[in-house]
């Protein structure tokens, strides 16, 4: 594939990766003159139309996600049988490789990477996209150590494929949730579980559940409780153990409700730790928060680079503290001097001095309000006399109404108190999920169109359930749940009931030959079948026995099918049509058996043997040429396919190097 140019635009330069479903190439985009990564779907999927449709749909949906911690998708295309996705080229390694190179990561770094991944998922989940295959192999680390998540939605597309594949022995199963192992319903919380496993691996350098085969790994995800990460690496704080174990709860309801909630806990943990570490310094004048991680993570900043910057900030903080102390001493000195001449200038200077001596307003650090009810946030702001503007309300799919989802400035920044201070706190508050109406006009519509409309236009989570319906044609929508016309929250699940057509069971046609009309009628009624035409037609009463029937006994048919009956004595058709039966009727209608041609051991042949085979059918058939081939001696015994008719003798006539060798009879029972 290297050297190929796709659609006259993407020049494949080098294969840089290979996964279960696709190969990845580094490529040059000829139009925009930049490097891109081109993901090319593997051969086995290119004939599976349903899968391809789904694959492209998921890729387009993922392309709408723009986030610094998500690998951007630029283009989705196909050229002939090559189906590909063009993505941002990342010069870096996977997180799996990163862990392999570095071993267990310091817990602070692991937390920051997890927060970056969760930030990417938060964005995706808000757009109704579940990743379903979060694992270190799908998280790329750029050369600046920015984590970037790739392959959104691909796992879902893969699950629709009917192609038999060898189970993936190293990848996804180590990270997939119990509900995925069971084949159950997956949602945002399945991604959170996988982040928990990934975080476990970052902290300890090992996966929580391992075994020599994927089925045992899946079983452990379903049944076994993970051990605490701190069992493997002792300096992991208890809070971190708790976060990992909560993300990895077997029951979805016990996990974090959202990616945002897990970010908040990781953030708190990191900050708590930092305050402890610096508790001997009273940090009144922090110019920038030590742990304004949330801002950095949500903005997708890099992880390693920031640690370096942090040290610089601390130095700056210390020097500004020093200058404040000097200023304070000066003010005090002036105060004392002025105080000394207080008696002389009593009335005039008192106010001035008072103003100077009065406690000066000092900046106050803004705490994190994310996740708190807005009233509580405002109460805290009032108590601290911090200025704030009217909260801004926004729809949010997962966070409940009235809860703060974002704030400016971020936690850790210090601002001046007082209503008239310039920097005011801005709270962004959830007004709950956006509401939409399920359309009224979708009964009888094609279910696939409705599924796409609900998902892409209304941002709902459609789930299709099939059921029988006498009223609605197959493949059309019967009803929805909640019902059509009702108002529902964006992102909520809507069940589309797709019709399977009327419910008719399959029954096997019984053997009616030799039975009387009454017996046949009873037999048919008991199976919910009906009597069809009766032959011969002109007969008065059907006193005889049935000699034939249509369809034949053993045929599976839907209920209520009419069975034609043929009564004896007259010129009714006889049973069995004799065509196309026999051993090995393949899709081309031919009938064949395999026989082996042996090299007679009593004769000498050269290294190669010219083999010619004729055959005859029946006792008086003409010799028909079957095949001729030149073979090496080692190719014997040589298999050939012999066309046969069951019940009729076929004779093979074998010639080697132009001489008759032997005849062989092939006979297949009818």
């Amino acid at each position, binding site marked *: 594939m290297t050297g190929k140019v796709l659609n006259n635009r993407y020049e494949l330069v080098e294969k840089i990766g290979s996964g279960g479903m696709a190969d990845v190439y580094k490529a040059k985009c000829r139009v925009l003159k930049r490097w891109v990564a081109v993901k090319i779907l593997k051969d086995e999927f290119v*004939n599976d139309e349903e899968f391809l449709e789904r694959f492209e749909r998921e890729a387009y949906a993922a392309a709408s996600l723009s986030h610094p911690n998500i690998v951007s998708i630029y283009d989705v295309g196909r050229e002939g049988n090559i189906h590909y996705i063009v993505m941002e080229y990342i010069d870096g390694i996977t997180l799996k490789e990163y862990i392999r190179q570095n071993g267990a990561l310091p817990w602070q770094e692991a937390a920051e990477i997890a927060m970056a991944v969760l930030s990417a998922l938060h964005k995706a989940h808000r757009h109704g996209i579940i990743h379903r295959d979060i694992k270190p192999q799908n998280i790329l680390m750029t050369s600046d150590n920015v984590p970037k998540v790739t392959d959104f939605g691909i796992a879902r597309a893969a699950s629709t494929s009917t*192609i*038999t594949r060898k189970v993936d022995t190293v990848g996804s199963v180590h990270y997939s949730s119990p509900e995925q192992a*069971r*084949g159950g319903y997956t949602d945002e919380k399945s991604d959170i579980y996988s982040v928990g496993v990934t975080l476990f691996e970052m902290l300890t350098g090992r996966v929580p559940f391992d075994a020599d085969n994927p089925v045992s790994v899946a079983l452990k995800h379903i049944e076994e409780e993970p051990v605490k990460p701190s069992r493997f690496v002792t300096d992991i704080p208890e809070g971190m153990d708790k976060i990992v174990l909560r993300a990895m709860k077997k029951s979805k309801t016990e996990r974090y409700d959202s990616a945002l909630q897990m970010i908040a806990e990781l953030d708190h943990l990191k900050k708590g730790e930092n305050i402890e570490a610096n508790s001997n310094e009273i940090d009144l004048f922090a110019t920038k928060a030590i742990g304004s991680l949330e801002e950095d993570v949500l903005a997708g900043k890099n992880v390693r680079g920031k640690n370096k910057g942090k040290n610089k900030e601390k130095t700056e903080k210390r020097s500004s503290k020093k200058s404040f102390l000097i200023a304070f001493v000066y003010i005090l000195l002036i105060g004392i001097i002025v105080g000394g001449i207080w008696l002389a200038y009593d009335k005039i200077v008192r106010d001035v001095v008072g103003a100077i001596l009065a406690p000066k307003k000092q900046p106050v650090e803004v705490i994190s309000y994310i996740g708190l009810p807005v009233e509580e946030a405002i109460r805290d702001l009032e108590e601290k006399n911090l200025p704030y503007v009217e909260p801004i309300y926004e729809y949010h799919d997962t966070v409940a109404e009235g809860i703060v989802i974002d704030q400016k400035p971020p936690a850790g920044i210090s601002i001046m108190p007082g209503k008239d201070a310039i920097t005011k706190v801005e709270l962004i508050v959830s007004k709950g999920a956006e509401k939409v109406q399920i359309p009224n006009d979708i009964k009888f519509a094609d279910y696939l169109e409705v599924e796409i409309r609900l998902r892409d236009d209304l941002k709902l989570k459609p789930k299709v359930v099939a059921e029988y319906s006498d009223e609605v044609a197959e493949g059309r929508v019967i009803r929805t749940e909640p019902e059509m016309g009702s108002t529902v929250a964006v992102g909520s699940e809507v069940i589309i009931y797709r019709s399977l057509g009327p419910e008719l069971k399959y029954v096997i046609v019984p053997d009616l030959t030799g039975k009387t009309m009454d017996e046949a009628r009873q037999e048919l009624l008991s199976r919910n079948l009906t009597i069809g035409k009766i032959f011969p037609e002109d007969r008065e009463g059907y006193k005889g026995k049935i000699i034939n029937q249509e369809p034949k006994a053993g045929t599976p048919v839907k209920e209520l099918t009419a069975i034609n009956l043929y009564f004896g004595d007259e010129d009714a058709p006889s049973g069995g049509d004799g065509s196309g039966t026999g*051993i090995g009727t393949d899709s081309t209608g031919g009938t064949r058996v395999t026989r082996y041609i*042996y090299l007679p051991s009593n004769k000498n042949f050269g290294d190669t043997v010219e083999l010619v085979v004729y055959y005859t059918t029946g006792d008086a058939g003409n010799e028909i040429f079957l095949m001729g081939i030149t073979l090496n001696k080692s190719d014997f015994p040589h298999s050939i396919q012999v066309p046969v008719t069951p019940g009729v003798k076929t004779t093979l006539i074998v010639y080697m190097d132009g001489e008759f060798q032997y005849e062989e009879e092939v006979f297949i029972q009818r």
Partner: protein
Amino acid sequence: MKYAAISDKGIIREQNEDFWNIILDINGNPQAFIVADGMGGHKAGDVASKMAVESISKSISCYLEKNKDGDGTNEKFLREAINKANEVIFQYAMENLDGSNIGTTLTAGLLCNGKLTIAHIGDSSFYLIRNETIVKLTKDHSFVGELVDKGILDQEEARVHPLRNQITRALGYEEEVQIDFYSLDVMPNDIYLFCTDGLTMKLSSDELLSMLKEEKDLNIILKNMVALANERGGDDNITAIVVKI
């Protein structure tokens, strides 16, 4: 003994990647039965199944020529034949397919000295029908099949599981392959069914049993089974061999 076979590409797939063979002795009596369901991409999907059937048929044919009635070491012989096929396929993929792997399921039965020896890899199946009951003797080497064995999933959950098509063992996929063996004494009126998952994904064992009971002509039975599997979606190749003692 009566027997019949059928192989159909279904109604969705463009090609038939299943292969089968019935090996007859010099008198035209069947001695071995093989079904194989290949995997490995649209160019090579049928390569592994074809190579497996050819290689193993050839080995069996040579073996029967030398040991007219088998010599009681059928399992040992089958193991060697299958290991050889594994090597041939694995080598072929290494040399010709740019490192991408191919593989196939395999369910084969060798009939010798009143015994039927079954060798099995993957998610094709062997069913024994005796005394009006049907038993699936082989275990599916698939992700969902093994979870069913462990009692985590039931048959219905397995049939709709997103990973239902992932098999845990395949012939020719890796350097070595693990083979399951089963052996049974041949009894009068036994019916044996070898088939690929194109059939078992669509028809329950109860349905298979009632279709085998209702009709005598084996070819008609197989045609009906294929017709029903196709009516229920036909999204995979369907292959079956039925043998009546």
